[in-house]
Each structure stands twice: as structure tokens, then as C-alpha cells.
């Protein structure tokens, strides 16, 4: 241990300016993450600070690429010329010293900064611990990769070349795969590989842990043997395990603990109903279809949903049968919101109205159209036709239930605030015109992959109980460049756009009524005086399977586009 401290102290003396600069960047970006949303929410001019924040974030990203190889390559593990290689410096002590210093500077310091930020935003300890553990995982992942590259190269130039080559190779690989996918797009199914279950980050967490372990194996091997080929082989073998094992892992210990309400368990409790007149067959894209596929769609509705709940439906399998003839589709679709008996046209709107105790919800944008759900898919080349095909449709669907709850109802004035668990919302200001209200607010939340509560989507409403009306709001965050950075970096540095972690933002929540949509409506003083800002959380809970059956469906199959008669304008068939 004495030797470990001795080596660490020498490295710190050697690179203290770089280390100090890194720690300063960590502190500055954390402070900016805390201060910038507040400034935005207060309506101050935060543009300069925002640009500075993004630049310092970029500098932090580049500094991370610099600090790790500097520390590691002080005692380079490549070549035969380094003086330390013929000195009695125990490889174990050397590795421990490097790992400890890098761990303290590159992992512990950012975690500490993030934890301080969460404390400042009042995140409860339990959530804070989970988020910190998750951040430690991602930081270790990043540092592990950089550490691996640093032990395999002699100097910064070699390190940069290796990282650059790996990036280029990765981009080339993805590009090649995309090119092949696009070339064969006619054959690509419009669906997804398997039904959607509760969110389960177990595989991702395991994969990350195994990649960290692979990096550790490579690094340890290189410190023990300084034999690059052997170390790379060990690392590559461990990496192969990292890609295989999560897929075979049988215990989803991090899966969201979703709830299936008792009223939904009975087989007769929920059922699907299709509007026969809405059935369409199309070979065009944009209806869940894909080039080379025919898609049968219809307006679908779920019945039997209890108040406070809405539903999403996803196709699992479907058939159309007639006198022994049978067409089958195994295309699986991601569940999408569909109306329940509480909704008029727009899914979830009736649920929200009931939850808010209003008679109508005013939604910005054009009038809602009927939601059409794909019922059946067939390759254009395989469909019979053009003779009518009258058969019985049978489709098996996954119905995912979504629970809606009022998270908060705040008076519409500056300073109104809400705090529950790790969610915080504070109204900073309210601006109003006749048809538009903008609420600026400071919003923060924290969650982690270790938190098994299902994730929730937040929706804002401006409600007037007296008028029995509510207006749906759209929130825009103040982030400007960060999402771009997040796209460039997997698990980007700091705010990474991932659904979990800690996030604070200054939001502008806009409630606007389209001109001419309702001439009788206006944000009058009376309307606003009694209004409150309502935060609704929609949580995806458990699923059930239901079958939709439609008998005697006369379908006119549309012939493939290239076989259609000249001048034919019809692209869809009526039931």
C-alpha cells in the first residue's frame, strides 16, 4: 500500500496541472448543470452561460480522453525502453496506483459533483444512491475503455490513433449494416422481434458490467505480462462473453415491477372492438407498413378499461381464413395508444378529462383523426387477388395498461412548487396572451436503472375548474447542444439523454389554443384566476393478451403496385 501511495504521489506531482484542470471542469460543469436551469426558469438571459456550459462540457469530454492516457502512459506498458520495466516496481502496485488515481479523479470526482447537485435539488437519499450507482457504472464503462486503449499504446499519438481507428471501424460497421438493411428493405419485417414486456435494464447493466470486466481483464493481463497480443485476446474473449451472456441471462432482477390491476385479470374484463367501416388495405408506407408489404388497418378501441387508465395495443399475430385457405402474419408491433370507451377520438383524452374533472380538453394542433391500428401484414408478392377474399380475421393483441395519476395541481403563480419523492417542480413565471399561456418552471427528477418502479411520462395541463376546461401543454427544455453531444457519445458525458439519471431543466410549458379552433375560447382573467397547473403522470403497467375476431370480412386485395393496371388510382381496398 505504501508503494501504491508512492507511485500515485509521483503521478500527481507529474500531472497536477492536467488533473487540476479536469477537476475544475468537473466542478464547473456540475455547477452549470445546477445553475443554468434555474437561470432559464427565472427568465434571465442564460444564452451566454448555456454556450459556455456546452463548451465546458465539450472540454470535459476531450479532457477525459487526455487524462487517462497521461496517467497510464507515465509508466508505459508497451515497448522495451521505459526505465521502470527493469526496476523492482511490482506490477500489482503499479496497476493499483493507476486504477486508484484514475478512479478517484475520473469516477469518484464526477460522482461527488453529481451527488452534490442532487443534494442541492433535494433528491432523496435512496434515489440519490441509485443514481450514483448507475453513474458509477457508466463512468466505469467509459474509463474502462479508455484505460484499455491506454495500456495498449505507447503514447498519446498511439492512443489517439487507436481510438480514432476504433471509431472509424465502428462507423464503417454500422454503415455497412445499414446499407445491407436498406438494400434488403423489401424483406425487412415492418414489426419488432418480440412482444414488449416491462422495461428491463438487466441485460444492459449486465452487458456494461461484463464490458467493464473485459476491460479489466485486458488491463490486468497487460500489467502482468506486457504482452499485447495476449492481452487483446483475453479482452476480446471476455468481450465476446459480454455480448452473449446477457442474452442468455434468465433472471430479470432489474425488470420494472409493473402492476396488473385486478379488474383486468378476468378474461372477459377487456376486449377489443374494431370499427368495420374503418378497415383499409394499403400498400403505402406510413401506416405501419413498409415497401413491399400490404397492411390492413382499422380503427380499434379497447373496452372495459376502468377510470384512470388508458390502453396501448400491439399486434402479436394475425390470420385471415376462408374455407380452408388461410393467410397468416407473424409480424409483431410495438403497442401504440388506442382509444378506450372514455375517449372520443384522441387516445387518453377522456381519461385525462375524467381525471381532471373537466368536460373538455383543448389540444393545440389540428383536429384529431381517428387512430388506425395495423391488423394484418402480408408481403405484396404473396397476396392473392384481385378477386375478393371474404374471410374471418383473427388477431392476437397485447394490451398494455397505462395508469394516469395527478402528480400535482399548482396555483398558477410564480413560486408555486411541488415536491414528491425525487420529482421537483417550481413555477418561476407566467406569461399570458389571449390565446396563449407560457409557464416557465424549474423541473428536476431523478431515477436509476436500479429503481424497479416503472417509468412515467409527464403531461402538463392548464385547468379551469370553474370553466370545466383544460388545455394540454407542451414543454420544451432549455437544452441546446447537449442532445447533439449525447448522440455523438454513447452514454454521453454528464447529461446524456438517457431516461434515467438526474436531470434538471428550465422548462417553458406552452398552453396555446389554435386560432379559429374555438372562437368562444380565450384565456380571460376569470379563466386564469381559477386556473391551476396540473401535472399528470402516465405509467405503463402490466399487459394482457386479447383476441380480436371479425367474421365475414370481404377484402379486395390490392395487386402489387408494379402489376396494377395503368391509370389505376386506387391504392386501398374497402371492406
Amino acid at each position, binding site marked *: 500500500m505504501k508503494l501504491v501511495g508512492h507511485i500515485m504521489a509521483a503521478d500527481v506531482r507529474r500531472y497536477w496541472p492536467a488533473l487540476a484542470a479536469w477537476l475544475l471542469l468537473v466542478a464547473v460543469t456540475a455547477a452549470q448543470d445546477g445553475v443554468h436551469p434555474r437561470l432559464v426558469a427565472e427568465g434571465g438571459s442564460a444564452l451566454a452561460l448555456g454556450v459556455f456550459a456546452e463548451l465546458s462540457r465539450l472540454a470535459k469530454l476531450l479532457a477525459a480522453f487526455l487524462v487517462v492516457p497521461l496517467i497510464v502512459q507515465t509508466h508505459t506498458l508497451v515497448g*522495451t*525502453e521505459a526505465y521502470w520495466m527493469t*526496476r*523492482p516496481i*511490482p506490477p500489482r502496485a503499479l496497476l493499483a496506483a493507476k486504477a486508484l488515481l484514475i478512479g478517484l479523479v475520473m469516477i469518484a470526482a464526477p460522482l461527488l459533483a453529481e451527488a452534490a447537485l442532487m443534494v442541492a435539488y433535494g433528491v432523496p437519499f435512496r434515489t440519490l444512491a441509485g443514481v450514483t450507482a448507475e453513474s458509477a457504472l457508466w463512468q466505469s464503462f467509459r474509463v474502462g475503455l479508455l484505460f484499455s486503449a491506454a495500456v495498449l499504446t505507447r503514447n498519446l499519438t498511439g492512443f489517439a490513433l487507436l481510438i480514432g481507428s476504433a471509431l472509424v471501424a465502428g462507423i464503417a460497421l454500422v454503415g455497412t449494416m445499414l446499407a445491407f438493411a436498406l438494400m434488403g428493405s423489401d424483406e425487412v419485417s415492418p414489426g419488432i422481434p418480440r412482444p414488449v414486456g416491462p422495461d428491463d435494464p438487466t441485460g444492459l447493466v449486465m452487458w456494461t458490467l461484463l464490458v467493464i470486466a473485459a476491460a479489466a481483464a485486458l488491463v490486468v493481463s497487460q500489467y502482468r505480462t506486457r504482452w499485447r497480443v495476449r492481452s487483446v485476446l483475453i479482452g476480446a474473449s471476455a468481450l465476446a462473453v459480454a455480448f452473449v451472456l446477457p442474452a442468455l441471462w434468465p433472471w430479470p432482477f432489474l425488470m420494472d415491477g409493473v402492476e396488473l390491476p385486478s379488474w383486468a385479470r378476468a378474461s372477459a374484463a377487456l376486449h377489443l372492438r374494431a370499427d368495420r367501416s374503418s378497415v383499409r388495405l394499403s400498400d403505402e408506407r406510413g401506416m405501419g407498413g413498409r415497401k413491399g408489404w400490404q397492411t390492413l388497418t382499422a380503427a380499434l378501441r379497447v373496452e372495459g378499461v376502468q377510470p384512470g387508465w388508458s390502453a396501448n395495443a400491439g399486434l402479436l399475430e394475425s390470420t385471415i381464413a376462408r374455407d380452408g385457405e388461410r393467410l397468416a402474419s407473424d409480424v409483431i408491433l410495438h403497442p401504440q395508444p388506442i382509444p378506450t370507451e372514455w375517449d372520443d377520438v384522441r387516445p387518453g383524452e377522456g381519461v385525462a378529462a375524467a381525471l381532471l374533472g373537466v368536460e373538455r380538453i383543448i389540444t393545440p394542433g389540428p383536429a384529431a383523426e381517428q387512430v388506425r391500428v395495423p391488423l394484418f401484414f402480408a408481403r405484396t408478392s404473396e397476396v392473392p387477388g384481385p378477386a375478393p377474399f371474404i374471410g374471418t380475421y383473427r388477431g392476437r393483441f397485447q394490451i398494455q395498461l397505462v395508469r394516469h395519476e395527478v402528480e400535482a395541481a399548482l396555483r398558477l403563480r410564480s413560486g408555486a412548487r411541488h415536491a414528491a419523492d425525487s420529482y421537483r417542480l417550481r413555477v418561476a413565471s407566467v406569461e399570458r396572451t389571449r390565446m396563449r399561456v407560457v409557464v416557465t418552471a424549474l423541473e428536476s427528477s431523478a431515477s436509476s436503472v436500479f429503481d424497479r418502479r416503472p417509468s412515467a411520462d409527464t403531461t402538463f395541463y392548464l385547468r379551469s375548474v370553474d370553466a370545466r376546461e383544460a388545455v394540454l401543454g407542451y414543454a420544451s427544455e432549455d437544452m441546446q447542444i447537449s442532445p447533439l453531444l449525447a448522440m455523438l457519445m454513447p452514454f454521453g458525458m454528464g447529461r446524456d439523454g438517457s431516461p434515467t439519471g438526474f436531470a434538471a431543466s428550465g422548462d417553458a410549458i406552452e398552453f396555446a389554443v389554435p386560432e379559429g379552433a374555438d372562437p368562444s375560447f380565450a384565456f380571460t382573467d376569470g379563466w386564469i384566476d381559477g386556473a391551476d397547473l396540473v401535472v399528470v403522470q402516465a405509467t405503463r403497467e402490466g399487459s394482457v393478451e386479447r383476441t380480436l375476431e371479425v367474421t365475414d370480412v370481404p377484402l379486395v386485395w390490392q395487386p402489387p403496385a408494379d402489376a396494377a393496371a395503368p391509370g389505376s388510382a386506387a391504392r386501398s381496398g374497402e371492406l
Partner: protein
Amino acid sequence: MTSAIETEALTRRFRRQLAVDGITLEVPCGSVFALIGPNGAGKTTFIKLLMNLIRPTRGIARVLGTDTRRMGPAAFARIGYVSENQKLPGWMTTSELLAYLRPFYPTWDDALCRKVQRDLGLDDGKKLRALSRGTRMKAALLASLAYRPELIVLDEPFTGLDPLVREELITGLLELPGEQPWTVLVASHDIDEVERLADWVGFVEGGRLLFAEPVAALLARFRLVEIVADAGAALTAPLRPSWLPLGTAGRTLRFVDTQHVGTDAAAQIQALYAGADVRITPLPLREVFVALARQASAGRQSPAVERI
């Protein structure tokens, strides 16, 4: 343990090039062993194998009784290694380097360290990267002597150094050990420097060790023979395999006798060239190696080579 270094058929191949070709060697404890050979002969590769800086393709090497492939901190604590190729931490001063290395060596001798630093006249104010090459080599030597290593391995330590610095280094190596002599293995192509330093010598050419023996024995068995024939007489006797021809100039035949052992050797030459004027003189080490190198490059096999 009588040998500080032992190798058996030690071989290292870099793709198609055989850098070290089956060298079998023993370096006696307490000796100063000079490994001589032209540039590119394989000396540095051989030493890197001994220091476990590279792995042998074949064969085995033991340094201070330890298989080099398993050499760890305990073995390195007993070895001092100085190489012209070694990259010292340029950001440190000499004192910082010594302070950094000190905790790794249980046998570190502060008094000896101060003495060597004083004797070598090492200035401490500058970073190592700012020092001249000679001063850096002195610092490297100091950092390799201060813990009284049992074995010192030097790879081309004198290359590019001025005579004064060379003298200081050699003096340091020869005078410092005191009562407990250390073993020194020095690889060099500078024969003049090692002649006064070494008591054993080995010659490497093309990755092969052509011979290894005590310097005294080597010098004793090599003689320059000059035979001046009488006017009108011819020198017709054939050269023996152990005689390395240097050429004929007029009536004078010159060759190196590589097996000039015993009192009979001169008499035999005299008898062979009866009537001629035979002059036999000792050879300096440099001339011995020039002759051997010439022989090696000509690809001749001789008893001198077979002695290995």
C-alpha cells in the same frame, strides 16, 4: 551459484530475422564480462532477453538463478541495468529520480548514493531531459548502483560519451563495489573501452556467440606472426586452419595464430619456415577482434570458433 547469468540455446526471432541464434553462455559471478560485436550483431536483443524485456522464441535464460521469463521485482532489486536506449523520466531531476526509486529497493545505500553522485559530479538542479547525454548516462548509472546490485548489465553505455565521462563511468564501475564485487555484463562495440574493464569477453556476430573466454586466455593464445623470407626464397608451407591470414606483402607473410599455446608453438612456426625471419608479437584485444570479425565475415570455420 557460480554463474550470474546462464543461457541455454537462447533464441529470438523477429519474423524472418534471427536476432539471437541459440546462444549458450555462462557469466561467472564476480566477473566483468564484455559482450563484443559489431552493430546489429544481436547484443542488445540478447540483453533484452536477459532483462525479460522481450521473450525468447526458444531456449532459456537464468539471471541470478531466476528464469528470466519469471523475473519480477525481487530479481530486479538485485540487478542494475543501464542502456543507451533507456528512456528515463525526463520530468524528474536526478534527486527526484533517486527519491522515487529508493522505496523500491530494500538494499538502497544512501551513503553510497551520495558518494557516487559526488564522484560522478552530477549536478542536481536540472530535469533529466535537460541534461546532456553523458550526464544522463551518469544519472542512470548512479540510479543503478545506489542499491549495491549483485549484477550490473550495461548496454552500450559508452556510446557517444566524451573520454572524461567514459573514464568516470569505468572508474565508478571498477572501484565502487569494494568488498562485495558485483558482476558486470557490458555489451559494446567499443573494444578499447572494455579492454581495461573486462576480465571475460564474448564475441557475438550475426546473432551467434562465436566464443566466450577470459580476456587473459584470449590474449595469450592470439599472436601476430610475421615471416620475412630471405631474398630469393619462397614461403611455401601451407597455413594451418588455426592461422588467420592477414596477407602477403613482398617477402613478408603475416597471419594471426589463434592457438599460440605453449612454448612449442613458436618453435613449430620457426621449424616450418626454416631460414626465414620469424617475428611473433602479442596482439591487443582490438586486433584480435578485427581478425575474428574478418574471419567471421569470410565464413571460415576455425578451431577458434570451435572452441565455443
